């Protein structure tokens, strides 16, 4: 059974209230030990403390900086290489082995190299985020381009757009835009997930602040930043929705 928009929204909100209510009750009744899990009611004061000290705002600005730069670089390079590999069989064949080799390496595993190459800097954190976003966009663009109807290439040749550039701009980019957009959107979420890994080694930001808090067993602060990240993801995803809708405005 499916529900209409407003009903769905109401259900979602009710579910959230229920979730936090049960959580609060479990901590208050001692079902969950308060040293291990912070009560939701303690999150507000913890958040206010972070805001008053200026840590919260600074952490968001720092992380946003890593996130946006890493996302931009990873998405452009990933989608770009994916498109090229999808169009050029020779390049695709050449890179097949390399791709299989590097694909399973998680972003976190690149942290030692990030430190080695970039030090404890914004560039290091950006690099780790970019890598984790890269693969999502690479595969999304690659399969989107390979899924382009070959009859459209014939159409392009028949009307004077048979060159590589003609095919790229007249056929491939618009035809694979839905798939590329889906990749960008998945990368948007993956990027926030890898912010923690990227800041794990001490580059300041939300991830670093979480690690500090957790080493002090300040679980309420950790949860405050978890929720902060969820909120930032929701905002970026919401904003991207408009971009997606505009680019794919021809779709039903």
């Amino acid at each position, binding site marked *: 059974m499916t529900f209409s928009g407003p009903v769905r929204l109401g259900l979602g909100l009710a579910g959230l209230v229920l979730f936090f209510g049960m959580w609060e009750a479990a901590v208050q009744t001692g079902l969950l030990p308060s040293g291990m899990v912070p009560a939701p009611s303690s999150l507000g004061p913890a958040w206010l403390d972070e805001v008053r000290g200026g840590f919260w705002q600074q952490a968001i600005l720092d992380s946003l900086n890593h996130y946006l730069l890493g996302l931009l670089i990873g998405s452009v390079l990933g989608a770009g290489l994916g498109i090229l590999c999808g169009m050029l069989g020779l390049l695709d064949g050449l890179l097949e082995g390399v791709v299989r080799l590097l694909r399973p390496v998680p972003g976190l595993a690149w942290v030692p190299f990030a430190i080695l190459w970039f030090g404890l800097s914004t560039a290091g954190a950006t690099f780790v985020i970019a890598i984790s976003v890269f693969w999502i966009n690479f595969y999304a663009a690659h399969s989107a381009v390979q899924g382009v109807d070959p009859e*459209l290439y014939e*159409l392009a040749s*028949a*009307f*004077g*757009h048979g060159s590589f550039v003609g095919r790229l701009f*007249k056929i491939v980019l*618009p035809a694979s835009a839905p798939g590329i957009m889906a990749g960008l959107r998945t990368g948007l979420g993956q990027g926030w997930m890898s912010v923690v890994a990227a800041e794990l080694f001490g580059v300041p930001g939300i991830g670093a602040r979480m690690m500090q808090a957790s080493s002090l067993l300040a679980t309420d602060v950790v949860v405050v930043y978890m929720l902060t990240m969820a909120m930032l993801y929701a905002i970026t995803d919401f904003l991207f929705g408009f971009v997606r809708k505009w680019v794919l405005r*021809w779709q*039903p």
Partner: protein
Amino acid sequence: MSGADVVASLHDVGLSHDGGVHFVLRHVSLTLARGEFVALLGPSGVGKSTLLRVLMGLMHPTEGRVGGSACAAQAGGQATRRSRAMVFQDARLLPWRSVLRNVMFGLEGLHLNRSEKIAHAQEALRLVGLEDAQDRLPRRLSGGQRQRVGVARALTVDPDLLLMDEPFGALDPITRSSLQEELQRIWQQTHKTVLFVTHDIEEALRLATRVVVLAGGPPAGITGEIVLDLPHRHPDSPAFRTYAARLRAMIAGEADPGGEAYWRSAEI
């Protein structure tokens, strides 16, 4: 026929997809004169579309030679029109482009400014009766309307040779016959040289000035042709039925029964 009047020609053309082991088409020679409307008739899968693609320059013949003014080397960067254009069976519109921008597809890259391109495309849309639909997306069109856009897209580049690959094959009979009439009208207005692929004898007889039959094989070859003299293209007229009987024989690979066949068989 002088050289300039030959729009396209095939000289002993053969086509193989495996480098000459098996041939789809072989020993095909065909000349299209300026202003002709030639129907290329034959059973499904015989290689009619392949022959069309050879003339369009989308495929290169394994043997033989393609000639004619429309099939000569492409004009340079100053060209304002294209020598050949094609209408596909499945309309093949780009779903992300509006009707107008679909029609403008072939104009892009030509030496025309934007307002000229828009004017050309609107003119072609007027010719197919879709001037009011220019801002619509293809998915908002009926099958017949989509095919009209496909025809407009081909006409707008002002080609010497218009290649049509069973353009009405996927349409319902009513839409089909109205589009056939419209194509007749457009052809009379524009005097384009047309090669029209079809497997429908009646369609060939309704539209063409000459019918060429491609059959047999593989490899398939041209098994006969008829220059039509049909003042009234009515399917029930004796002349129409005689031509149909002759074409059926050519498709089956039998000897041409000649003009009297229908009457002889009808009297028995």
